[in-house]
C-alpha cells in the first residue's frame, strides 16, 4: 500500500463561505443521486397531493361555499393554492426521515469527522428536498390544470405574478424542511422522523384558509388561522394567481400576504437553521 505514504495534499482552508457552498452542493448532489435511485419515494410523494386534488375537487367541490358561490369551478380555483402549499410542507417529513436515516447509519458521524463546513450536511439535504419539491409542484400544477384550475379566474394576473407565487411556495417548503432537519436530528429512527414530521402539519394546514373560508370559523380559531404562517402563503398565492376566496380579514398577514409569507418563511429558516446546526454539532447517533 505504497500510496498511503504519498500523502494526498488537502487544500488549505479557503474562504469559509465558498467552502460552505461547495460542501452543501456536494451533499445536495449525493442526496439527489439517492433520490433518483429510490424512485418509489418520489412517486409516493406525488400520489398523495394528486389524490388530494382529485378528492377535494370532486368530493367537496359541489358543497363548498366560497365567497357566496357554491360553484365547483370556483372551489377548484380556490382549492389549488391550498393544496400546493400543503404539498410543499410535506417535504418536512422527507428531510427529517433522510437525516434521521443518516444518523442511524453512522453517516452523520462520518460527516462530522470530516473537515467540512458545519451546516453543509443539513443545507445539502434541504436543497435536495427543494429540488424534489419543485418537481412535485410542477407535476401537481399540470394535474391541477387538467382538472380545470385556471389562473386569472377572478381578476388579472401575469406570468411574473404566477412565478412569484411558485417562488413563495418553494420558499415555504424550504423553510419547513429546516423544521424537518431539526426533527430528524432529535428523534432516533427514520420512521419516527416521518410521523413526527407529518402529524403536526395536519393542524397547521387545516387551521388555515387552505381548504375553507375562515370567515365561517369561530372567532378565536379564525384568529389563529389568520395569523398562521401557512395561511399567509396561501393568501399570497390566491392573490398572485388571481383566484377566488381571498380572505377579507383585517389581520396584517391577510392584508399583506406576500410580505407576510416572505417574512414568515425567512424567519422560520433563520430560527430552525440555527437550532438544527447547533443540534448537528453535538449530534450523537
Amino acid at each position, binding site marked *: *500500500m*505504497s*500510496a*498511503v*505514504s*504519498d*500523502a*494526498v495534499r*488537502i*487544500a488549505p*482552508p*479557503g474562504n469559509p463561505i465558498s*467552502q460552505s457552498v*461547495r*460542501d452543501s452542493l*456536494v*451533499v445536495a*448532489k*449525493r442526496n439527489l*443521486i*439517492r433520490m433518483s*435511485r*429510490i424512485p418509489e419515494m418520489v412517486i409516493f410523494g406525488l400520489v398523495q397531493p394528486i389524490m388530494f386534488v382529485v378528492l377535494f375537487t370532486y368530493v367537496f367541490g359541489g358543497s363548498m361555499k366560497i365567497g357566496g358561490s357554491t360553484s365547483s369551478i370556483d372551489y377548484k380555483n380556490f382549492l389549488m393554492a391550498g393544496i400546493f402549499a400543503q404539498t410543499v410542507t410535506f417535504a418536512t417529513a422527507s428531510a427529517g426521515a433522510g437525516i434521521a436515516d443518516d444518523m442511524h*447509519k*453512522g*453517516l452523520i*458521524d*462520518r*460527516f*462530522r*469527522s*470530516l*473537515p*467540512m463546513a458545519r451546516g*453543509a450536511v443539513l443545507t445539502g439535504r434541504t436543497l435536495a428536498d427543494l429540488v424534489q419539491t419543485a418537481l412535485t409542484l410542477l407535476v401537481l400544477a399540470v394535474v391541477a390544470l387538467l382538472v380545470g384550475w385556471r389562473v386569472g379566474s377572478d381578476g388579472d394576473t401575469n406570468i411574473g405574478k404566477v412565478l412569484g407565487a411558485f417562488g413563495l411556495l418553494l420558499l415555504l417548503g424550504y423553510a419547513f424542511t429546516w423544521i424537518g432537519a431539526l426533527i430528524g436530528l432529535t428523534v432516533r429512527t427514520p420512521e419516527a422522523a416521518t410521523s413526527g414530521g407529518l402529524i403536526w402539519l395536519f393542524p397547521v394546514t387545516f387551521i388555515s384558509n387552505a381548504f375553507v373560508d375562515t370567515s365561517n370559523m369561530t372567532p378565536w380559531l379564525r384568529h389563529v388561522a389568520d395569523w398562521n404562517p401557512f395561511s399567509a402563503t396561501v393568501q399570497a398565492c390566491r392573490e398572485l394567481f388571481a383566484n377566488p376566496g381571498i380572505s377579507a380579514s383585517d389581520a396584517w398577514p391577510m392584508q399583506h400576504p406576500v410580505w407576510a409569507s416572505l417574512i414568515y418563511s425567512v424567519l422560520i429558516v433563520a430560527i430552525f437553521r440555527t437550532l438544527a446546526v447547533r443540534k448537528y454539532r*453535538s449530534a*450523537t447517533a
Partner: protein
Amino acid sequence: MPGAIYAEGLVKTFGDVRALDGVDLDVPEGTVLGLLGPNGAGKTTTVRCLTTLLRPDSGRAEVAGLDVLKHPNEVRRSIGLSGQFAAVDEYLTGRENLQMVGQLYQMTAQAAKARAGELLEQFNLADAADRTAKTYSGGMRRRLDLAAALVVSPPVMFMDEPTTGLDPRNRQMLWEVIKQLVSGGTTLLLTTQYLEEADHLAHDIAVVDHGRVIARGTSDQLKARTGGERVEVVVHEREHMSDAAEILAGFGKGETTVEEHMRKLTVPVTGGAKLLAEIIRELDVRGIEIDDIGLRRPTLDDVFLSLTGHVAEVNDENGKEAAE
C-alpha cells in the same frame, strides 16, 4: 514530547453513567495502540472524544500535535475514522462514496476522482466500483468504509471495532490491510473486543474497564504480569496420572492442577522449551504415554480475567457498547 495521540484525564458522563473516568493515553507516532475492553468499557466514547465527535467534560487531548478541543477542524484534516458501523451511503456506488468523501476533505473534484480509483484498486473493489453499496457484502462494505477513512492518507487513524461482525476470512483480509497501512507509518488507535485481534495488530495494548485504562503494555508484558508460562500434559491412560503428577511436581514451580476427566495436568514452570524437553524425556523413561504436551503462555483472556476479575464479555451479535 507527546505522541501522535495523547489524552490526559478524559472524563465524560452521560446522565448517571460515567462513561470515561479519567482516560490517559499516549500513542507514539507510527505505532498501533489496541484499546481492549468489554462492551460499555468506554472504548467508543474515547474514540469519539479524540475524533472531535464528542466533547469531554474535562481532560485534554491532542491528535497529530493539535489540541482536539481548541482546533477541532484542523484535527479533522489529519484524521481518518472508521466507526463501528460501515458508514457508507448504500444508494451510492463505491466510487461515488469515495469521491464524495474526498471532496468533503476539500480535495478538488478531479483529485477526489483519481484518489477514489486508486483506493478501489487497492481495496480490491474495482470490479464492484460502479455498483451501489447496497449490493456489497459485509466485508466489502467494511473495506469501502476503511477506504473512505483513508482518502487523504491521514497521519492518524481511528478504527472502532473494525472487524466486529465479520466472518473469519474477511477479518483476516482486513487485518492484512491494516498491517500494510501501519507499515506505511500511520499512527493507529484501534478498539477491539477480540483479544486475539489486539494481540495480532497492536504494538501496545491499553486495557479499558469502567472508563479507565487499567493496564498498559505490550502483549508480552501484559501476559508476564499475569504470571509465567506453564506446562500442560494430557496423558493417554488414566492410571498414569499420579505418576505424571509426581514427575511434574519435580520440575514445577508451584502446585500442579489436575483435571481428572480430561486427563490433563498443568504446572507453572520457568525455563521454557528446555524444561519441556526434559519433562518429555522423563515421561518417556517412565513409560507414560501422552496424547498432548505443550508450553502454554497466558492468553489475553487470562490477562483480562486477572486484571478485571471478570472475563471479557464478547458479544458477537451486536458490538455496540451498551452504555452509549
